[in-house]
């Protein structure tokens, strides 16, 4: 076993539970989430040499995971592409259990809540993963929290 492999294992071991939580919230079932994590770790290890800035390992791997999850949903034909953020009556989310309310959010808002509040990614990290300006992430985050009636730190 070589040094870069050692390092990969240590970094990935620290991340794997977080990756699973992201995938589980995204795909909504255990076996799909496990498969997505397996595939993500495989793709990450296979393409490790393509990572030019090792300090961004975490965001790079997370982006791979999200792409894997999106692909899985496309295959299941369940994904709704977010073009426009639809306006939902506040009462729609209010009456639902939180887990269900989150699942009904538009895809991008769901992802932001998933990364920011269930997996403790910073605003900067989330923006890098989603390839959005930080301001856009902050706006959408506020919107999602408002829809869910959650009072959490906005950072």
């Amino acid at each position: 076993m070589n040094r870069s492999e050692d390092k990969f294992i240590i970094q990935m071991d620290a991340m794997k539970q977080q990756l699973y939580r992201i995938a589980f919230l995204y795909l909504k079932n255990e076996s799909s989430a496990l498969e997505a994590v397996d595939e993500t770790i495989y793709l990450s290890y296979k393409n490790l040499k393509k990572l030019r800035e090792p300090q961004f390992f975490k965001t790079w791997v997370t982006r791979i995971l999200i792409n894997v999850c999106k692909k899985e949903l496309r295959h299941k034909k369940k994904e709704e592409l977010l073009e426009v953020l639809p306006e939902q009556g506040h009462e729609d989310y209010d009456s639902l259990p939180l887990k269900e309310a989150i699942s009904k959010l538009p895809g991008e808002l769901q992802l932001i809540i998933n990364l920011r509040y269930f997996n403790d990614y910073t605003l900067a990290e989330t923006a890098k993963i989603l390839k959005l300006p930080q301001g856009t992430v902050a706006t959408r985050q506020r919107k999602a929290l408002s829809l869910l009636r959650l009072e959490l730190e906005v950072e």
Partner: protein
Amino acid sequence: MNRNNEFQELKKELEETPFELEYSISKAISRVKKQKRYDLFWKTPLITLGSVLIIFISAVNLFPKVALAMSDVPLLKYLIIAVSFDPSLRLAVEHDYYQVLGERQTQGDVSATVDYMIVDAGRISLFFHVDAPVKEGIYSFELLNDDGTPFSAGIFYDTGYVSGELESITIEFLEKAVTIPTDFTFHLTVNSDPNFKSSMEVSSDQISPAPSQNSPVSNSTQDTAEFEHSFTFRIHTDQSFRQTVATYPINQYVTISNQKIYLEQLDIYPTKTGLSLSCDKDNGAVVYNLNVYFKDENGKLYKNPTNGVTATLDSEANNINSIYFASSYFSTSKHITMYITGINIIPKEKLYGEIDYEHKTITNLPENIMIDTMTLKDDTLTFTLKGYREKASNAYEMIHSRYWDETDQLYSFGSWSTGVNDSSDYFTSTYKIPDFSKHQYRIKWGYAPTIHLDTPIEIQVK
């Protein structure tokens, strides 16, 4: 409940992660290393042609930071990690379902040790390691009955080892009439050439009576006799292991997409589960795949394995006649329900495709498959098919490994290469047909898009 409290509860709920996650990293690294070792990428549901015995080679790299001690039988934890890619094998080991062999032989500076074996009524998995003065090399093997005849008929792989790491060989017995031998000989030849370069060829002498002109026969052995070391192990299979299977009759007909299918029985082995079925001969299409999974009363799913044989076809290599899944043998569940969620069928009149070089096409091209390239050079036709990956990271056999000419002479694609671009929804497979101008050739399609059922068919099996 206050919304923020709900959030904290939900966050707490998500802190629990499944046990299988512990093996994700080792599985991934093993998978990458296996690909690097072999030039040929082959990750596909492996549909066999109804042979009596199929050998599936799984060479698994060890994950842990410490290599095996030179003189010790590997600690059990290495076996657990070695089987981490297979949930059924892992459960078997966790329930002490394995035999410790621990037999070591040495020739000069090379040793081979047969460490463990896992046996049930449908499978033998052997785990061994090589200690050599080189980091890696290749090995070949034979498995012989008591009378000296090989029972590992047909397919031999020259495959690679990493010195000091646990390797595995699995033999799957797919015909119920075949019994696991009580004693057999494992003949292992190890090459410790320091100039070894990774390569792999498949050779076969079990293609049906027609001459297989397109099959490479030679093994990838090099002229390095001085580096070859042969070892012969006599292996005994314990009766308590080799007859182990639980059978549940189903005996039901289902009709899916107008195709009538008979579901015969479910055989649950410690290392796998096998569903036997047959398709009505009057069906208008061949059924080459059924999407099936099982679920117990606790919600645990049993799906196709990610390694090894996942299904077999009948003797004409048309209809599916068995499908394999992870094993529920060691589960405490009392009930198992089968769910059929989809089917893949090819109308009989569209089963074959005639190769038309002039128009760079093949007739009856299935949906989701296209001709990527087709070239003719020195009378060898090379064509690449491009297939849509229905499921992320999946490749599949788009055509069968055999083809025919206008006289019905049978040939075999001895080997083919498959390429996958991970960022693409497509993969490619490239085939060659020599002496192309001499005949008109046809291939047999092995793929059709999945027809997903709106409502899965549910059948309680146990």
